[in-house]
């Protein structure tokens, strides 16, 4: 299996009147072709910015992005155009990302026109649109409908069809199911898995829903305020967390089951600001395991074992430390 994308020490900062927002601050990871990297973390931690920077909708502040072996962090115009074909994005809110004045057919057709697919042959392009509609499960009779006439699930299918129009290899899916009801969410997740299998697609799947990310990803990275705090195989994370934030995050998920009890870690303290953050652990203000050193310097991402990476002063290279349950917990009992 080959690595399709590798990101090294990627940074994306935004200058604002109140200071510099470190939206993505030194992120590194790699993804193999045909696999899915799940990105989770709370609102504002930099997930969308990461996705947009990786596919070059945003210019990185620093760092390298290696796609298929080539560095694409500062591509020429030509290269960028070629990349636009190979890398696509599916957005959270399918409504605001679709042009309200374009029919379903034109929406899917537009990227083909821009890139002069089939040498600009309209008939071939139109055929391809209808095929794509079949692929994503949109009835052909909807070709002339407008987005506002359709429900959220169908709109998301249009977004997917449009992303597929240029036969990309790599897709950033930014909360593609977050706005959907669970029964529709499940239909879309199945569709995305099928497409991945058929077309050997590589995904970055951004979400804040941990059960969704577990279901869809091969590898997961947990972000906190612009940084990766833990990264490992998807199934592993749910069994064993080595970062205090991941530990709290997983304990906070409400389980749809009765007759179970468990301990939940309640986080206190203020969330630190992403504006000009101090060079200390960004989770320290809320961390129940914090030590003096955590307020003095920033922890690095280290490899603790079996492709499991953690950024925490309690963890040492090759020496995973099993986090005890902190004192401040509540017992959750689903009767």
């Amino acid at each position, binding site marked *: 299996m080959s690595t399709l994308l590798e990101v090294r020490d990627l940074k994306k900062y935004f200058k604002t009147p109140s200071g510099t927002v470190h939206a993505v601050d030194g992120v590194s990871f790699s993804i193999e072709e045909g696999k899915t990297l799940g990105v989770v973390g709370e609102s504002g931690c930099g997930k969308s910015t990461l996705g947009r920077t990786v596919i070059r909708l945003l210019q990185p502040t620093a760092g390298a992005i290696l796609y298929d072996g080539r560095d694409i962090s500062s591509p020429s115009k030509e290269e960028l155009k070629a990349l636009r074909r190979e890398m696509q994005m599916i957005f959270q809110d399918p409504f605001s990302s679709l042009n309200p004045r374009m029919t379903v057919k034109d929406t899917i057709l537009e990227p083909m026109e821009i890139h002069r697919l089939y040498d600009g042959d309209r008939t071939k392009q139109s055929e391809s649109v209808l095929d794509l509609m079949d692929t994503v499960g949109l009835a052909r009779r909807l070709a002339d409908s407008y987005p506002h006439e359709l429900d959220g699930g169908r709109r998301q299918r249009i977004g997917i069809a449009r992303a597929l129009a240029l036969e990309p290899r790599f897709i950033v899916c930014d909360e593609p199911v977050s706005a959907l009801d669970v029964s529709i969410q499940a239909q879309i997740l199945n569709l995305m898995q099928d497409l991945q299998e058929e077309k050997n697609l590589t995904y970055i799947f951004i979400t804040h829903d*941990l059960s969704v990310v577990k279901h869809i990803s091969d590898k997961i990275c947990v972000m906190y305020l612009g940084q990766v705090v833990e990264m490992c195989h998807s199934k592993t994370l749910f069994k064993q967390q080595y970062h205090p934030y991941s530990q709290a*995050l997983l304990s906070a998920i409400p389980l749809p089951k009765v007759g179970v009890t468990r301990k939940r870690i309640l986080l206190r303290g203020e969330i630190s600001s992403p504006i000009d953050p101090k060079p200390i652990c960004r989770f320290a203000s809320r961390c129940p395991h914090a030590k003096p050193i955590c307020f003095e310097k920033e922890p690095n991402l280290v490899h603790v074992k079996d492709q499991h990476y953690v950024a925490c002063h309690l963890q040492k290279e090759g020496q995973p430390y099993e986090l005890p349950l902190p004192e401040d917990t509540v017992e959750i009992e689903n009767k």
Partner: protein
Amino acid sequence: MNENKLLEIKNLTIQYKTDNGLVHAVNDLSLSLKKGESLGLVGETGAGKTTTALGIMNLVPDPPGIIIGGEIQFEGSDLLKLSKQNMRKVRGEKISMVFQDPMTSLNPVMTVGKQIAESVRIHETLSRKEAEQRAVDVLEMVGIPGERFNEYPHQFSGGMRQRVVIAIALACRPDLLIADEPTTALDVTIQAQVLDLIANLKKEQQSSLIMITHDLGVVAEVCEKVAIMYAGRLIEYGTLDDIYNHTRHPYSIGLFSSIPSIDGDEERLRPIPGLMPDPINLPKGCSFWPRCNRATENCKRAVPALIESDPDHWVRCIHIDKAGFFEKNAVSKKTDTSRNESITHTKDTDVEIDSSKLEESLASG
């Protein structure tokens, strides 16, 4: 009316008159709630959850909304018959509602502390100083430092605003708290704080709770009873154990198999095929039939009655008998559901569904 009952809704029907037609938002809904009891009102977007809550608060926007009929008995009187003034008193003193969007219930030009102090003073005769001290206490109770008393709502994060709204609702010590998706927009770690707060309120003040959500995890944590709605109707009602361990209605079963599990390893989800019906144009008979893998011709004839399949476990499906079993002659069809989006518009013979979860549940029931 039973002594123990705090709230009893009978045959509530609410519609919205729109340019496109009549929206049947809530249809003939009956529910009751005991003192100190928590009910989870579950359903997907458009099922009628918020409208039901607005009905209880007598706050259905009119126009376009009309309460067509029904009764809402609360502490001995029918809320739908109360004068505006008395109803306002009930809302101030007895029933509090946390709305879906916290910004709508906060005044953007008044400091957060002042807003809490004011609502406390509506309920208790306190001096301004005392009320302000109470507001500081309340803020700290929801995990916000008291020194942020003088800040405005826009200076707070979404999670903090939601906690303020809940703090205000709690400061009124309501007999009944209605929380409409209070945590849907929050991160799970913040959601955990809010749920903890609600659990404490229940414990300390014996308040009753109606928790509106589509998150079956949240319901399992804070509720004792569950009501599942589909297209404006209650389709299944029972205890947590009834609904989670002895799921009967094909729609409820579909909901459970649609959610990825956090502790299991399913390769593929088993979604309900098709889409929610248009509430302006509900299918005749059982409104779930176009998506139901157990539908037969009989399902299309009349709206099924709620049947008590086990004691106090109610199910609205013609094929469920009193012992909670699926009738033998109910036909099932085979299938894949993932791509077919046009099911609601086609004959149900096109529908193919994985019915193993249903079989499983029926076997275990």
